[in-house]
């Protein structure tokens, strides 16, 4: 079998990273950062945590290229969905409408 077996040490490390990330996001939520920084900090931590889960718990780091393509395609279509929807909602009212 050419299957890669992830060592226990890595699983434990990722688990601890995820716990620290959760603690950090709670602490950060109570700080009053300027502008939209609270949301940006929270999302940065969440994306980092999710990346660790995908790469190590879900073995993508050790998986075939094809799996990488599938994961990337999901993110790609997600970005399209958000970009097209908000290109509508954010620009409403920029140009006065006759209706």
């Amino acid at each position, binding site marked *: 079998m050419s299957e890669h077996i992830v060592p226990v040490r890595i699983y434990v490390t990722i688990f601890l990273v995820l716990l620290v990330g*959760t603690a950090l996001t709670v602490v950060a939520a*109570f700080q009053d950062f300027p502008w939209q920084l609270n949301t940006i900090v929270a999302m940065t931590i969440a994306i980092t945590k999710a990346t660790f889960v995908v790469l190590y718990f*879900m073995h993508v780091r050790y998986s075939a290229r094809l799996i990488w393509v599938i994961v990337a395609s999901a993110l790609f279509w*997600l970005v399209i969905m958000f970009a097209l929807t908000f290109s509508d909602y954010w620009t409403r009212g920029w140009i006065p409408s006759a209706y």
Partner: protein
Amino acid sequence: MADVINSPVATSEAHGHRALQHHFENMEQQREAGTLGMWVFLVTEIMFFGGMFLAYTLYRSKFPAAFASASNHLDIKLGAVNTGVLILSSFTMAMAVYFTQIGKRRPQILCLILTLVLGLTFLGIKGVEYHDKYRDHLIPGQLIASSPFLKNEAEAQHHGLHLLEGATLPQVEMFYWIYFAMTGMHALHMIIGAGLLTFLLIYSIKGRFDPEYHSPVEVIGLYWHFVDIVWIFLFPLLYLLGRHLEHG
């Protein structure tokens, strides 16, 4: 192994494992096909939850004050504990896959039981939170006749919901529609996951999995981690967005 894959005489009869299906050359090809199929399914799941995250983003950008007010009523302690429970269950699931890969059945069964128990713990805590929302009239609309949504600001104050400046109750109600839709769909995935784990548990007690054949453990693991990832985003987005405004 590479020689075996490329060899025209490498048929399933020659290298037969009892779990090998006839349309696959060998166990490795079968395992990779299974993992690939699970990932394709998870892409559809990402798009499905993505639609709800889109709705969330849109309404939060329209009603920021109401979303912060409504979010502050959620129990941050229960939410954080549940996040920890789910992360721990993801860890035990990963360990279950690990022990299957190296062929250690006892710790594999133990890890599956732990994962299942942690999953059910999460659902139990979620149930407590839902009950709190029921008690405080925060279930949107008239879905539950005995506990219609808050009617006015005095009632909101009485139930511990403080409206920040610029927030209105119908907007708060919108938050709770999205909250129940997203956490409800997430909980449904957890319930399905618990069912799948029960299936895995029965089969691993029967000794069906070994280092060569463990695709079911692997792909259900992928599903379980995906559900964990959804919660990793739901927790800050639903529970934490208005905390820094609370003391202002």
